[in-house]
């Protein structure tokens, strides 16, 4: 009788007993809404929602609810990152290119303004 009122302390040996205790602590409870009504609501909403095709699903891999394994997900994340990195590099190259252009512009302007003066940039 006493053992019934005492909680089972979880460890490797009494894992099954602890499992039973947790199952009892969270019994299957009745939902606030009747399941038929809930299902009706789901079906009405589902009818209005488009399904994501398998191609879209691949594109939307960052979505949290996916069934891929962790290793596949890491590979996909790395692939996605490698796609991002070149574009960042391109942006940096572009910024550098603009500076070069600006430098050339200054040079041309200076030389144009000082034509015949003997002073060159």
């Amino acid at each position, binding site marked *: *009788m*006493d053992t*019934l*009122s*005492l*909680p*089972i*302390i*979880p*460890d490797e040996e009494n894992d099954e007993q*602890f*499992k039973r*205790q*947790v*199952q*009892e*602590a*969270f019994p*299957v*409870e009745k*939902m*606030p*809404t009747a*399941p038929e009504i*809930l*299902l009706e*609501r*789901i*079906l009405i*909403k*589902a*009818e209005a*929602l*488009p*399904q*994501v*095709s*398998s191609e879209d*699903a691949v594109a939307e891999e960052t*979505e*949290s*609810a*996916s*069934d891929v*394994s*962790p290793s596949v*997900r890491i590979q996909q994340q790395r692939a996605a990152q490698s796609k991002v990195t070149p574009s960042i590099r391109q942006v940096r190259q572009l910024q550098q290119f603009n500076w070069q252009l600006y430098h050339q512009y200054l040079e041309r302007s200076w030389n144009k303004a000082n034509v015949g003066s003997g002073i060159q940039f």
Partner: protein
Amino acid sequence: MTTDQELIWRLRERDLSALGELFERYRNQVYRVALAIVRDPQVAEDILQDCFLKLHVYAHRVDPERPLMPWLYRVTANLSYTYVSRHQKRNTDLDLVAEQLSTSSAQAPDRVTEHTELQNSVRAAIEKLATNQRIVIILHYLANMSLQDIAEILDCPVGTVKSRLHYAREKLRHELGAIENLSTEYAHGYA
């Protein structure tokens, strides 16, 4: 009985009766796990709805060759985690006390009261865990998921699941051990 595999294929063809059958088949498990994590029947019901709507929307992403339950638990865990992390600040120990007071009946027979109190203690101890640990405990002990399955559900390495389980068990040992000591002292008339 129609297999899950067949139902998923039908669902991919937008056959909503298949969604209905899957709902009937798994609603209790999904609701139970959601409720165990969020501890709010209305929110658990919303999570249940969202979970089956996602099943409909992402039916093409579900592998019909694999068991459906881990996929449903994955969505449930994600939705529950999002809810809990958004509402964590509002949860206080007072909520737990209030729940314990409302669920334990003073007029019930001693045995039933003891049993309910024990269940409340277990629930309260699990609720005190960090959300990550709580989800692992619920998936392992309530949903009967293996560590490998939990790793896939939570999208993390098995080692992480083992570590969360280890620390969760330690905390539960501490919480439930304190109750056990208190009960023993009471039984021996020390309190």
